[in-house]
């Protein structure tokens, strides 16, 4: 038996019922990020001075390309969840909040998509 009044149901008040999903995925991507980010920082910092050839060779191997794509997906999803919370906390104007959240989603998909395609081009192409 629902304790919500009809007006509350119409207005869509109350829990969004999806909060834990956000919390869980923030943690999952965080845990995945730890080894992936460390792998990337060490690999990228360790190859400075190697120039284009070093980085191209690095990301061309199947394993490195896969790890890089996983890093991109995990990091962009994690960033999106995090910035979403920041926007929800500090933007109080409802219309502006909706617009900002939408812009965030579109931006992360655009930039994340760019990164994935770039890695694929490096790994598959000869550039």
């Amino acid at each position, binding site marked *: 038996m629902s304790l919500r009044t009809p007006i509350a149901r119409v207005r869509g008040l109350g829990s969004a019922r999806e909060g834990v999903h956000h919390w869980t995925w923030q*943690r999952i991507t965080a845990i995945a990020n730890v080894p992936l*980010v460390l792998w990337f920082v060490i690999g990228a*910092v360790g190859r400075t*001075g190697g120039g284009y050839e070093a980085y*191209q060779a690095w990301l061309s191997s199947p394993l490195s390309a896969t790890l890089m794509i996983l890093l991109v997906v995990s990091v962009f999803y994690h960033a999106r969840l*995090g910035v979403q919370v920041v926007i929800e906390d500090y933007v109080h104007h409802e219309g502006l909040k909706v617009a900002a959240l939408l812009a965030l989603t579109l931006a992360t998909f655009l930039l994340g998509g760019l990164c994935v395609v*770039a890695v694929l081009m490096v790994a598959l192409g000869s550039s």
Partner: protein
Amino acid sequence: MAKVERPLSPHLQIYRWYPTMAISIAHRVTGVGLALGLLLLTWWLVALASGPEAFATVYRVTTSWLGGFVLFIYTYVVLHHLVSGVRFLAMDVGWGYDIELARKVALGVPAVAAALTVITWIALLLAR
């Protein structure tokens, strides 16, 4: 319904700063900074995919003194967010709530992050 303007209770100017509070805010600030930094990562990857000529510009910028400095700061920001993030993950499973322990661990976060940053960059300079 008209929005009623209500006075905001002063908080940042009143409450004394604790290490745990500072680390929490730093986690958020570094997080937002890193999110913006993803633009740089995208730029780097797209340049790499665009071939040697496009990458040459990126390479010149990142190996300049200013670029190197920015990358050094960026490494610290990444490692700070990572270390304080690991602390929060541990607290999620119930570890580290003892008041004194929490304070000490919070103070340790920037120290560990700085140490890791220095180690990474020393290793980089040695490998060159």
